[in-house]
């Protein structure tokens, strides 16, 4: 019975195995990016970027129909353009990055919806907005895995300047010029992972599998490395549980995954070791030192 409910769908159906592989790849790459987004107070920047990739994906859709390759390429181009433009404007004018990004993403979103409405149907629009991880073919899965691999490699390269830039940007600027490139590379990774999530969860929820696990991790550890590990595990478990939930109840897969992550988040807010509500209400006896 338990086997049928929790493991059976994956042994029985190939599309479920593909979806599971995709969600694990998304978790491995997206969750660490989400942790940095959160710690750099850029959570909503990630959300804005998710909207910014829409026109590129829509152009891909306009040119080749519901072809995920074309939509991915378009999304990457649009996302990079907006990320880099917003980053360059912020750094060269002193305008805060979120304000700069808000302008670009709104323009981008308006353009994207216009393009989809020229050719699309309501079903296409639903696919673009909410994705469909259960409809993933081998090629798309390979794209997701490739993007995840690139993300982890680039993150390893920029990890040190990214951490220093987050905690003490003035220091980094005195010892190295790596801060600017690292920041732009990080924005690029955000885009890559949003496009990745876009395949599975759609533009509206793509950022969910990045930010929610990061939020969960913040309630369980004060150590950056541990936080990243917890975020990856939380994302993967949410993905797996969401797929099972979707299979058993016919809830759409994207929202199911994000809803499961939200449940984990609420549990963490309540019972988390670091700043959880229950812990604050009942802290136990004070310590010696």
């Amino acid at each position, binding site marked *: 019975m338990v086997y049928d409910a929790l493991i059976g769908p994956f042994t029985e159906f190939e599309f479920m195995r593909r979806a599971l592989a995709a969600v694990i790849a998304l978790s491995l790459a997206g969750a660490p990016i989400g942790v940095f987004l959160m*710690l750099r107070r850029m959570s909503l920047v990630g959300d804005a970027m998710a909207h910014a990739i829409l026109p590129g994906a829509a152009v891909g859709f306009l040119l080749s129909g519901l072809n995920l390759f074309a939509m991915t390429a378009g999304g990457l181009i649009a996302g990079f353009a907006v990320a880099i433009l917003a980053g360059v404007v912020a750094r060269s004018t*002193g305008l805060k990055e979120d304000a700069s990004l808000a302008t670009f993403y709104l323009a981008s979103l308006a353009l994207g919806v216009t393009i989809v409405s020229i050719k699309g149907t309501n079903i296409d629009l639903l696919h673009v907005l909410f994705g469909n991880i259960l409809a993933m073919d081998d090629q798309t899965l390979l794209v997701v895995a490739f993007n995840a691999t690139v993300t982890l490699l680039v993150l390893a*390269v920029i990890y*040190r*300047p990214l*951490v*220093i830039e*987050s*905690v*003490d*940007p*003035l*220091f980094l*600027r*005195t*010892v*190295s010029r*790596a801060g600017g490139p690292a920041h732009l590379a990080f924005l690029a990774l955000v885009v890559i992972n949003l496009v990745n999530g876009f395949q599975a969860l759609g533009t509206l929820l793509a950022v969910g599998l990045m930010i929610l696990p990061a939020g969960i991790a913040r309630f369980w*550890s*004060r*150590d*950056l490395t541990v*936080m990243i590990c917890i975020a990856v595990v939380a994302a993967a478990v949410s993905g797996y549980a969401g797929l099972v939930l979707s299979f058993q109840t016919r809830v759409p897969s994207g929202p199911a995954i994000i809803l499961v992550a939200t449940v984990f988040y609420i549990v963490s807010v309540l019972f988390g070791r670091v700043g959880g509500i229950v812990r604050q209400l009942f802290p136990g006896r004070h310590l010696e030192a």
Partner: protein
Amino acid sequence: MAAVHFHNVTLGYDRHPAVHHLNGEVAPGALVAVIGPNGAGKSTLLRGIVGILRPLDGSIHLGGLDSRDIAYLPQSADIDRSFPISVFDFVGTGLWRATGLFGGIGKAAREKILRTIASVGLNGFENRTIGTLSGGQRQRVLFARVLLQDARLIVLDEPFNAIDSKTTADLLALVKHWHSEGRTVLAALHDMEMVRTHFAETLVLARGPVAWGPTAEVLTPENLLVAMRMCEAFDDSAAACAADDARSRAA
């Protein structure tokens, strides 16, 4: 060759000068206090020296030093204390000169970091995150990083603000030790008694230079009064600098 040479330098933000037409030089191995009221341009000048801020006009030459020969201690407020980084890792960033982007931190480097943390009196604090430290402990961590940077030019922005007398004495001893090793040290300070007692040379700044030279000659009530009367001069409708016009006409 001077360690730092200011050539008619103007530093500021969005065309508004915070340091206006400063000339002069800091000799290698000098211990210089930069004093002046809030808004006098002390932090701006230090940011110009370490290359964070580009001059609006004029130039700053660093006597053949590159960025790796400069250690900068920012004001505590410039650091994101909520970021989950340990004291060990934070101090370890001072090894950037040796490690760069990819270099590993081996056993010898680890021991060096631990020794440095111990030398500022923070033994046992290695795994604490910086957000859990007191103001004085945080300042000790910043000094530890400067120690590890092993730089020839050390620039300290209000290093003794809001810390107790014991911590101040410990950290001041470090500054004097750096001076005795022949390093050049510039520090923005507010404590006149400390400047009078421990710093041989002083720059009194009030946007423009009020006085610069041996502390005993420069730190006079008259000069301090001039500096105190300095008005905040941020005016959106201000005309372009007349001194620059005169210079361009002469040229």
